[in-house]
């Protein structure tokens, strides 16, 4: 449908105001919120994500599109609830204890949101206790852990062990990442997923649920 394509394009161009306008029009035309979300907003983010992965657009462009996306979903929110539509999944994300690097984590968050996930960001330097508490409260499908230091990456294992202790390990998939982390390390500590960059992280997250 033309209007959904227009929404998708407006997202890709990061035009928050146009997105707002078009989403309202689409609703008036009687298109379901679900369809507007999937074929308009998320379609746009998805296409931009591909272009990001191919080095055709920069992060600020994706961030601006993500803002536009938020604008759009804001309007849809009520209707989505009415229609009983749920986000495709919920992710709790954090940089582990002792580690203050957050740029990588923020990019992962951005791409996850762009892929339709609801993301709860606990910030940086988050202890295993805080993470456990958040998992209990938020009940996410996925826990995503970032670490940038060779002296903190081991804390990803600490969190996984704490999950086991708390009998939560089976309830949540764990994804790990960050510059020093490798697939081999992820395997070794018993994580369910690993990705080298933010775009791949979103793909891996989708494959995990």
């Amino acid at each position: 449908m033309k209007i959904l394509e227009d929404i998708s394009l407006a997202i890709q161009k990061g035009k928050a105001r146009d997105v707002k306008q078009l989403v309202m029009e689409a609703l008036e035309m009687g298109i379901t919120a679900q369809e507007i979300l999937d074929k308009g907003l998320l379609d746009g983010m998805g296409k931009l994500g591909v272009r990001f992965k191919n080095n055709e657009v920069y992060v600020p462009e994706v961030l601006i599109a993500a803002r536009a996306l938020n604008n759009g979903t804001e309007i849809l929110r009520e209707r989505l609830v009415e229609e009983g539509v749920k986000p495709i999944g919920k992710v709790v994300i954090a940089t582990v204890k002792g580690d203050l690097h957050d740029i990588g984590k923020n990019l992962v968050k951005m791409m996850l949101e762009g892929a339709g996930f609801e993301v709860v960001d606990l910030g940086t330097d988050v202890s295993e206790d805080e993470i456990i508490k958040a998992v209990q409260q938020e009940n996410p499908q996925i826990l995503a852990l970032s670490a940038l230091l060779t002296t903190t990456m081991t804390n990803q294992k600490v969190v996984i062990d704490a999950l086991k202790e708390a009998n939560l390990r089976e309830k949540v998939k764990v994804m790990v990442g960050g510059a020093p982390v490798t697939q081999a390390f992820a395997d070794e500590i018993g994580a369910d997923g690993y990705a080298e960059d933010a775009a791949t992280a979103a793909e891996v997250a989708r494959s995990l649920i």
Partner: protein
Amino acid sequence: MAHVFKTTAYTNLEDFVYGKALKPVVLKNGMVIGGGVLYPEINFTLPPMLITKETMSDVMRNYRDITTGICERAKELEVPGFVAEIETLPPMTENPQWGIEVCKTVVDIIKEYEAKYKIKGAVRITPNDIREGKELEHMWRGRHWDSILETFEGCAMTGADLMAIESVGGKETHDEAVMYCDISKSIFALSVLGAKDMEKLWTEIVRIGEKTGAVASGDTACGFANTAMVLADKNYIPKVFAAAVRVVSAVRSLVAFEVGAKGPHKDCGYEGVYVKAITGTPISMEGKTAACAHLSHVGNIAVCVADLWSNESIQNIKLLAGMAPVVSFEQLAYDCRLMNRAMETGDSLLLRDLHADSDSYYDPQAYVLRPDVVLEISKELVKAETHYERGKRAALLAFEHIRSAHENGKLRLDERELSWLDNLSETVENLPEDLEEFIDSVMDDCENLDPEKYDM
């Protein structure tokens, strides 16, 4: 009182070369940095492990083995001298006694080799700046601030020769600037917040230097310009933005020297070339041999005016030849041998220019490190009076030089970069004259900034 540099120390391109600085730094053991020899500066860090009370003996073993390995290789390769940099990791600054113990371990081994085999080595201590995160009370008082200063003083007393840091004043704001490529916010973070913090922090470091005899050396804008560089290298942000941030960061890094730092400026601050041009103090730089720590587009050009040549950082893990820090050290030693040989034969300017010309066409971040460009920009930069004006001018000068280089076929830029170049220049041109007006216009939009921590 802060001394603002109003002229450049170097006026002649022929004098502006690696291994020689107008104001060399003489160390206790007689090594002269910037005195005619390019020395390697080796950096290292722990392999994957936790740092806790329980692992402390293992931590110390690592530092002992690293230092011994390096000294052995220095002896084998007859290196004329070297600097070992210790960048503490967060728990070592939070518990200053750990950082000081690590420093002592390294210093003692180096001194032992110096006594036994006449290997000249010096230690640079770089406490990591822990003034970040949820628990920070204030930038200039409280637990975090005290620990940093305690680490400096303790390490200086235990024999460290040089004191450096990669301070983070303004970084919370600059992170946002980088992600959105917001050049106004970048200028605000560097030349307002950063400069303000640098002045406070470096006044203290210089004081510790006077008290202990350690040299207050310099402060990298890593959290700013290198973050941008790494993101640009991943094609996450435009290179012209990262190049401009580099030049703007010089305004911030210079502040250490305005309050009394003496050099050598720290390795990972590529803006050091501007610091050297303006102050005449020696600098450390890192390039291709630091690829272990981050890939970059300035692998060769980085050495042009360096006085120390560094690998930035490498974990203590085993490569086929042996431990990685020793491998890195050997690579640095050979690079330095070549450069020093050319110094002896009178070919240093030629070698400098070969290095510069080999990189500068391919990337604006390399282009703004060209010795000729650095001198030209520096001469203009020092004409501006305030840090804010310098910040603006730095960005504009970077954009101008990049644009004209591109027009003259001296620099390749793709379409995407060119359109960012236009937008960014326009933004800077339209910034207000007045500082207060500027601050008002930017600060509201700074989500992560807590002005009270800066007494603002």
